[in-house]
């Protein structure tokens, strides 16, 4: 049997296993490990099993994940979610879908502090989801708007994924980071419009708060949103003033929200530290289990040659540039269904980047374009890490299917954003060209 056939069979098994209800991490790991055994033998597969768990977790860089989770849980204990809700309903509550829209804007603001799509999705699940559900929002709309809003953190600097692109393709990291700023804000705006359109068509998905508030009440409510704004301001200032690195921002954010929770409860007792810590580590374990088993599967897919075969096919085509762009997008969207972002970039960029450069596209522009593609992949089934995170952090309030179902309009919004980026590349290139 040829390696490509093994790769194809493995991919089919992955989908079958997931649909049969086996834990996603078990399917990814099992197909990956047995697939590797089929390609290079059991001893070889075992050797990767003996290294991948240590290699992936023995990392300072990844410590940001549990710490951002901890930040989210502390923020919840500090009541930042309720406060944000108080403030935003008073200002935007009259608007249908107002809370989902303000959550999106909040996540964009938070994205200027967080480099992690997954972390941001977690924080805002903790902050906004219970409030939206309590106000009668549709489960799918509420959870999906958070899952997609998390991706804004990767577009808006700082962003670990953009740095990965810069390294893999030898492009200017500084220019890339700056380039993501406007597209991030534009995408946030596109998402808000999408929410507005969705609830325009289906008003029952998001009830309007009919209470009228005076200007005085509205202004006073800003005081409530203050602590969250303060946390964001502290982190952004700290990053830009060089007090700490993006990786350290996770710990700083967690500590700041811990202090806020201490103040809120006038002591450590009200925070219920053991429960908070247990929630944090259980969600961390879930995320890392998926991350690592996705890596095992990526290794298998790479070694089977499936990834390389796709690239070879692309370079052989003789068609108009936009067709290649569409094909490249389809590759990312289909592989993005199954793989996590860094692995996806590592496998595909060596193939797609030269093709795009040959066609005369700007490397900085392509970086932003690819990051958007990969982030759309983070919310598409069956392996949509942001959806997993939202579901896991929702304390059973939503099911995975609810999240995926609600994402249809937002994935369409993502496509619209891709088209916009293609037609108006200046969105990404305006700032870096002025550096």
């Amino acid at each position, binding site marked *: 049997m040829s390696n490509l056939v093994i790769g194809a069979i493995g991919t089919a098994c992955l989908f079958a296993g997931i649909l049969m209800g086996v834990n996603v991490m078990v399917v990814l790991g099992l197909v990956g490990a047995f697939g*590797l055994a089929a390609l*290079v*033998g059991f*001893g*070889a*597969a*075992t*050797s*990767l099993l*003996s*290294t*991948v768990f*240590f*290699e*992936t977790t*023995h*990392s*300072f*860089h990844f410590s940001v994940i549990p710490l951002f989770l901890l930040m989210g849980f502390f923020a919840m204990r500090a009541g930042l979610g309720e406060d944000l809700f108080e403030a935003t309903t008073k200002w935007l509550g009259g608007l249908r879908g107002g809370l989902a829209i303000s959550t999106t804007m909040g996540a964009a603001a938070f994205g200027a502090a967080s480099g992690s799509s997954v972390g941001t999705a977690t924080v805002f699940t903790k902050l906004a989801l219970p409030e939206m559900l309590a106000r009668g929002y549709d489960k799918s709309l509420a959870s999906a708007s958070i899952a997609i809003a998390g991706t804004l953190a990767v577009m808006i600097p*700082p962003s*670990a994924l953009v*740095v*990965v692109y*810069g*390294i*893999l*393709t*030898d492009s*200017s*990291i*500084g220019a890339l980071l700056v380039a993501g700023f406007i597209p991030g804000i534009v995408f946030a705006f596109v998402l808000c419009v999408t929410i507005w359109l969705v609830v325009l068509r289906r008003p029952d998905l998001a009830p309007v708060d009919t209470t009228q508030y005076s200007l005085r009440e509205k202004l006073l409510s800003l005081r409530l949103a203050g602590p969250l704004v303060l946390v964001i301001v502290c982190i952004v200032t700290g*990053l*830009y*003033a*060089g*007090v*700490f*690195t*993006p*990786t350290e921002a996770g710990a700083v954010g967690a500590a700041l929200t811990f202090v806020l929770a201490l103040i809120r409860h006038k002591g450590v007792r009200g925070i219920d530290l053991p429960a908070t810590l247990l929630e944090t580590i259980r969600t961390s374990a879930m995320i890392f289990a998926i991350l690592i088993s996705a890596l095992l599967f*990526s*290794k298998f897919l*790479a*070694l089977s*040659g499936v*990834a390389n075969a796709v690239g070879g096919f692309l370079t052989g085509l003789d068609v108009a540039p936009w067709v290649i762009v569409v094909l490249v997008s389809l590759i990312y969207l289909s592989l993005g269904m199954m793989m996590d972002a860094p*692995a996806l970039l*590592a*496998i595909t*960029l*060596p193939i797609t*980047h*030269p093709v795009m450069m040959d066609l005369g596209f700007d490397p900085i522009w392509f970086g932003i374009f690819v990051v958007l593609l990969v982030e759309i992949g983070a919310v598409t089934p069956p392996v949509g890490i942001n959806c997993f995170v939202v579901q896991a952090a929702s304390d059973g309030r939503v099911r995975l299917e609810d999240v995926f179902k609600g994402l249809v309009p937002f994935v369409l919004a993502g496509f619209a954003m891709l088209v916009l980026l293609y037609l108006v590349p200046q969105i990404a290139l305006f700032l870096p060209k002025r550096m």
Partner: protein
Amino acid sequence: ETFTWITFKPQGAGDAQARTTQWLVDEFEARTDGEHQIELFWGGSVAATGEIPEALANGVGDFGDIITPYFPDAMPLNNAVGFFIPQPMGTLEVGEAMERWHEEYPQFSEELESQNLHAMGFRPLETYGMLCREPVEGIGDLEGKRIRSYGFAYPALIEAMGATPVSITTADTYEALERSVVDCTPIGPALARGWKYDEIAKYYIDMPLGASFGHLLAMNLDTYQGMDEETRAVVDQLGADYLQEYARVLEEDRARVLELWQGEMGVEVIDFPEEDLTALVDDPQVQAVRDEWIAKAEEAGLPVDEIVSELQF
């Protein structure tokens, strides 16, 4: 037959390491008259840096590059150079020293064979200096500076400089330099250009830290021993030729970067008094790192003095 090469290096990096890896693979096919080929798996897609020795030993791949300093305990002898920072040899000298040591002292290859590995070639890194945000004219200017540190030799050396070692990830270093979380990082011109650090740190201090080692171009031992004599001869010769080709390409890269620095990049290269650095070797902490290697080498029955003398100024 088609062999596989697993590397952490992304193809798109386009640096001397990536280009010469491709060169080696092409040469292998040409020199075996197309009878054998190597399929390259780039970018750590099959095995990450920390996984490559195990993966190679167990046959996940046939060839691969091992970043030796990541494995000081598993392959201490082959890490000799890593324990001796600073040391006087440049890229080519370090590579040739490794070749010579492997020829003269069986302990070097035995260490790898016991892990089912074979070294077909050696790839030292470029000669390092220090890239800083501010000019540094001598050791006194380093007092209190925050310097990026990693691995097992730099923390001691940086402390001996009177500076503060700051451990940060490679991915964070660009931003850390930009925002003054660190003031300097040890690096060479080609690599500084590769990571874009020279966009934000504009002073390259020509501190003779030496070329560190580096990467073993390693093979699965069974694959190597299973080759017919003719193919094995091609591999052996190719390993030797690789070092020369790599050193040549790297030197070109460095020259190009230095020219770029003089021109549009505006990075100033500043001389550093060599004796300011060599004096630090006597620091007890720096010496302790060296003694650690010496103890391991003596245990393996190596004539330590001969090797150490090459690594001293």
